[in-house]
């Protein structure tokens, strides 16, 4: 057999390093201001695809939508074993909410053509929405299995996975094609291969409007020659449904809210002050 897999990845700002210059006045994120990394759970999604490829054979195509700089995460995918990578980049994609993003991804996936599995991270650390996966599945008219904590069996026609739930878990099975969202506990992502880093560190993106699916033949030897770059026209998307114009949600305002309490009291870090505090809490029946 051999499964055709597409992994959806996202370059995200490392949200541990946010400064006041990070937000633009229109409420969108100034990504140039922050160190950009590959979304952590997207690494789990890529890892799962590579493991499936190693077990049953197939191809792994990684795809991202973002500014030209997002080629960095596609290189990361090549370093780890992706066969082919695609960048969706166009000013008209900018400012997209999850609905407009999933529309563009759907158009691009349909352009890739036949596929068995689509994998993405459970959620991204910048928005934490977990919406793009299910919305892409709906737009493609395929099934979805979210919160996947373990891939149990990859069969010829069906895949069986464990989904983690609020209380416990469930084991579910679906025929292909199906979209999976992979959680961090599913696997331990591999490190880049030194050989592949040497091979791909200088790879650049190239506009490519004449995508040829035969390129993905699993036996091809030459490896990935360039990062394919697609715009609105190459994926035959309706520009009105992309970017800000295709996004029903708008950011009304952004604030650094300071929550303060009325009666804040400083307690000295001394035995007696702390004893006083504990005694007071006991007296007020806050602690028993």
């Amino acid at each position: 057999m051999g499964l055709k897999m597409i992994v959806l990845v996202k370059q995200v700002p490392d949200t541990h390093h946010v400064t006041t210059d990070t937000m633009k006045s229109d409420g969108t994120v100034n990504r140039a201001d922050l160190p950009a990394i590959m979304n952590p759970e997207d690494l789990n999604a890529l890892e799962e695809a590579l493991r499936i490829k190693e077990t049953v054979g197939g191809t792994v195509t990684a795809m991202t939508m973002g500014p030209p700089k997002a080629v960095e995460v596609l290189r990361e995918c090549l370093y780890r074993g992706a066969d082919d990578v695609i960048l969706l980049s166009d000013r008209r994609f900018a400012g997209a909410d999850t609905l407009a993003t999933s529309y563009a991804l759907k158009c691009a996936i349909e352009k890739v053509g036949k596929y068995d599995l689509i994998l993405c991270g459970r959620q991204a650390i910048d928005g934490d929405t977990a919406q793009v996966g299910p919305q892409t599945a709906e737009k493609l008219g395929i099934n979805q299995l979210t919160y996947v904590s373990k891939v149990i069996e990859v069969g010829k026609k069906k895949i069986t996975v464990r989904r983690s739930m609020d209380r416990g878990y469930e084991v579910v099975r679906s025929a292909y094609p199906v979209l999976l969202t992979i959680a961090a506990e599913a696997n331990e992502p591999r490190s880049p291969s030194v050989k592949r880093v040497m091979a791909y560190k200088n790879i650049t993106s190239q506009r490519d409007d004449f995508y040829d699916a035969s390129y993905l033949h699993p036996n091809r030897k030459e490896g990935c020659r360039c990062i394919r770059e697609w715009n609105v026209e190459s994926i035959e998307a309706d520009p009105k449904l992309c970017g800000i114009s295709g996004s029903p949600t708008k950011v009304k305002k952004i604030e650094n809210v300071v929550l303060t309490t009325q009666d804040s009291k400083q307690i000295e870090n001394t035995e007696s002050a702390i004893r006083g505090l504990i005694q007071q809490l006991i007296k007020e029946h806050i602690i028993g």
Partner: protein
Amino acid sequence: MTQKSVMVFIEQSDAKIADVSLELVCRAKALADPLNVPVEAVAVGYGMSDQLDVLGHYGCDTVYCVEDKRLAHFTSVPYAKIAAGIIKKYKPQIVLFGATTNGRDVAPRIASELKCGLTADCTELKIGEYRIKDHVWKKTLMQIRPAFGGNIIATIVSPESMPSMATVREGVMKMSRPDPSRKVKIQKEKCEIADSDFPTEVIEVVRKESKVDLKSAKIIVSAGMGVSTPEAMQKVRELADVLGAEIGCSRAVVDAGLLCSDHQVGQTGTTVRPNLYIACGISGQIQHRAGMAESKRIIAINSDPNAPIFEIAHYGIVGDVNDVVPKMINAYKAKA
């Protein structure tokens, strides 16, 4: 009667209506009253019609109930199709979902089908005005949530979207006092779903009650990255033990693998309102504060005097957790 209601997607948990659904009905009532519209609900499943009365006690006027043997267990495609069908038929202006694993699975799928806006994990919802240039929407849904790893609070609107949809975590909205005399109209709807719309086979369902019960804990001792060593964690555990407290933590502690996510307090964890919250080595990002700011008393221990947690603490102690926590344990033991 289609007065563009506020609608709630009802979930079941252990053969009864989930708490989060009741909390959302209460919130829906608060949103619906100033809009002068009814509160409606959509319940999808099997064998649940006898549990729906409770929705009325919390303010729901009508529940559309879709039952079928094949719907006994949640799966994405049929649940999304049915709920989207009900929304198309009755045209609510707002639809609320619990931010449970199932709610967060099905809501985006429905939003995609309806091409409407959806905001995840809201910590506050209200009706307000939105204007852009000359356009004014007098009464639209303000969807408020921390974003960007909890560094900011964003107000999201989707004024042209019909409906506006949002997910909310369990415990975020308060439950109001039920009125058992209040009745809900239960309206059965046909399940017009083909077998081919059930692409997921459910093979096994394992329910595991979490041993951690943050929601009903009276006292929570919570660990942040200031408690990243095993010895500091041991001291936090000891304090929790002597006080009979539950152990909570920040997201960073879960990400670092020090405690499992059952312990996580905050926007993407559990929202808590204990009598006493002791924040040990927690810096207090918005994300975390959103989940604990309503604790009756907050003690913050942090070696950084500028840590944001002090802004909401009733009692602030500047010092190292390893140093302060043993003093608290001793003080408590001496008293008891």
